[in-house]
């Protein structure tokens, strides 16, 4: 930002007024003497040069001392602080088991993740392997940066190892007839509710949209600052829209990837949310809320129902036993559905050691159960063997989500047959956030949908 100050480019001060500075008059002969006496301390200079040279040579030598392969593994932050420690420990275990490969673990924050990867790719410093969001591999593949893993998948198919993966997860990451990444976890959106508020009002948790509407009305007591639902207006807010649309059998796209936001099923879903808002059953500040605000409001009972990622009970330990999960809601046409993303592990074309990178990739995929048991990742595993682990089975929340929500999960590409690069732009550009903010402010559905449609088309085609 430009400095805010008093500056006068338009009028020059003349400097005609006289100023006297503390009596010390510097004459030019004095000045000349000062300059003469300043000498370069030559010896000091030479010393520092030689030290620098020595260090540089030393560095060059030690760099070539190792004889084996170095890999860079970039892992997004998928859980609480202990996640990073677990990741590092797991990498250390790999390094131990494979003496000729050394993997360096780097934790990458979510903030501006796309820029981080683009920057690295653009300057030739991409990692060898990385984890990433649901459409990262596909989008970067389109930019020519990803190394497909058809051979890995092919080998596992022959060995029967693919059976350990939940159905659909491997094939979701197929694009342009190549497998562009391995799936490793599922992120999904589920409905939570406050059991205590429901009990107080003698209500049963809803199972359909109609029931949701009714209980939301019953649970709204504006004077007590309590509402049926609390939502938010950021990225999580946009997930409300995806969830409802997919729940109703709708989808953002047609089979051939044309924007179809205004389809009947979609409009029906968006109308549903809009009606909840018009009936004043959604917390009024929701449009301006972030994820954090929504969670806080839910914990304070400002909303009795909310949509969130798995692990909400863990985030609110104090009211853990007051938090329950709704079964996936049945829409007006009898369908169920929710939004999910299959998160990736991918290899990069810039890797100088693709063979070793593939070894690490396979090892990581097979051994990463620690990330759940010790790292406390809140997302769901794609491997049935991991899902069967007591850590996950004993957690009622996780078990419930695995058996109820994951089977009905769909991705944002629906109804297109496979995911594609532009999905990242669609999610990242902000158009769906604007749409949910519009709906949460009670603005007209049709006008808002038209606006969002145009904007989506612009993102897809421009």
């Amino acid at each position, binding site marked *: 930002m430009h400095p805010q100050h008093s500056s006068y480019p338009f009028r020059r001060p003349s400097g005609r007024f006289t100023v006297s500075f503390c009596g010390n008059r510097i004459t030019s002969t004095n000045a000349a003497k000062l300059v003469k006496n300043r000498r370069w301390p030559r010896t000091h200079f030479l010393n520092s040069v030689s030290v620098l040279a020595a260090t540089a040579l030393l560095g060059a030598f030690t760099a070539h001392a190792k004889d084996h392969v170095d890999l860079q593994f970039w892992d997004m932050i998928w859980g609480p602080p202990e996640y990073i420690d677990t990741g590092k420990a797991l990498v250390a275990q790999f390094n131990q088991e494979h003496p000729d490969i050394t993997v360096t673990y780097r934790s990458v924050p979510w903030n501006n993740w796309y820029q981080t990867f683009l920057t690295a790719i653009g300057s030739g410093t991409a990692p060898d392997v990385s984890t990433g969001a649901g459409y990262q591999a596909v989008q970067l593949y389109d930019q020519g940066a990803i190394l497909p893993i058809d051979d890995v998948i092919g080998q596992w198919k022959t060995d029967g190892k693919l059976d350990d993966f939940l159905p659909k997860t491997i094939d979701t990451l197929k694009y342009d007839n190549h497998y562009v990444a391995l799936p490793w976890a599922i992120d999904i959106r589920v409905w939570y509710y406050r059991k205590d508020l429901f009990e107080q009002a003698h209500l049963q948790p809803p199972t359909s949209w109609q029931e949701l509407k009714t209980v939301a009305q019953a649970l709204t007591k504006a004077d007590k600052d309590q509402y049926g639902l609390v939502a938010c207006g950021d990225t999580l807010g946009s997930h409300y829209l995806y969830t409802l649309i997919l729940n109703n059998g709708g989808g953002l796209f047609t089979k051939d990837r044309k924007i179809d936001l205004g389809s009947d099923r979609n409009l029906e879903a968006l109308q549903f949310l809009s009606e909840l808002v018009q009936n004043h059953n959604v917390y009024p500040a929701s449009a301006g809320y972030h994820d954090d605000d929504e969670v806080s409001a839910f914990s304070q009972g400002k909303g009795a129902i909310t949509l969130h990622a798995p692990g909400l009970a863990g985030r609110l330990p104090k009211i853990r036993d007051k938090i329950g999960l709704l079964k996936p809601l049945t829409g007006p046409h009898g369908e169920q559905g929710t939004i999910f993303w299959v998160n990736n592990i991918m290899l990069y074309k810039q890797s100088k050691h693709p063979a070793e990178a593939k070894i690490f990739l396979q090892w990581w995929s097979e051994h990463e159960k620690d990330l759940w048991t010790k790292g406390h990742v809140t997302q769901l595993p794609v491997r049935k063997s991991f899902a069967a682990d007591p850590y996950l089975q004993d957690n009622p929340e996780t078990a419930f989500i695995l058996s109820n929500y994951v089977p009905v999960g769909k991705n944002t590409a629906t109804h297109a047959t496979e995911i594609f690069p532009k999905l990242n732009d669609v999610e990242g550009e902000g158009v769906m956030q604007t749409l949910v*903010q*519009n709906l949460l402010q009670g*603005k007209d559905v049709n006008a808002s949908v038209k606006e969002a449609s145009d904007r989506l088309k612009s*993102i897809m085609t421009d």
Partner: protein
Amino acid sequence: MPRAAIQSSQRVAPTLLVRGLPIERLPYLLLLPSLTLICLIELYPFLSGVSYSLHKGTLLSTGNFVALDNYVRLFNSPDFYNSLSFSFFFALFNVVFSYLIGLGLALFLNLDFPGRGLCRVLLLIPWIVPAVVSIVSWKWLIADRGGLVNIILATFGLGPIYFLSQSGWAMVAVIVIKIWRSFPFMMLSLLAQLQVIDRTLYEAGKLDGASHWQLFWHITLPHLKNISIVQAILMVIWSINDFETPFLLTQGGPSNATENLILLSYRYTFGRNDIGRGSAVAILTLVLLVVLATLMLHQQRKIA
């Protein structure tokens, strides 16, 4: 002019000859480092920006040449007009109100009372603190029911206003915060100008029986005209270029209500990975600023 005896440790600046006249290299050398940096950091990007705006590029690749297509699409896009209008109102309200408040406080601080120096210093604080700090403080005051503003409203029986959750109120909030951050600058410049107005003018006016208002209108204001226009120009430029205030508070929402031209360019570039359109918006903003500044300078010359 005879040269004095030159000691061996002193050098004479070598002179160039152009058309037979000596030209000192020194001023050019003095400007050179600054000029180089300016060319690197602003001229080169400007030219690149123009080039990007004529192509359809992403942050990874330059893309195809599309001539004025980006501009045409912009002019057909409601987003552009939305951000243009918000930039306009943001600048307008900011300049007007920060000026009025600054003038009022400058007149007040021009009065002679003990401790006015202290007051003057303390009133500069909104301008001095980092934008983030301002936003954190205001956000707490206006966020949710428990914020101070809503508590005050509640005592008057008025309902809670969820400033950050409603497009209209969010715009109001952003503008108010900007005015709060801007007025000290106006106040300071106006005060400085007030303090050099010859007091005898006022005394003469009072002898002639002029009222306070007439003194203000006929003596004070004319003296302030020049500086006022200058400050207004600067404030308009800073308002239109302001990324921090709207971004930190609302990130341009809700519903893109507080998205100004700069935020729009940012969204196109980093949200949509479309540097063609992002650069086009930025260039249009520059054009707008140049036009505005020229117009206002014209006004200033007319008056001066």
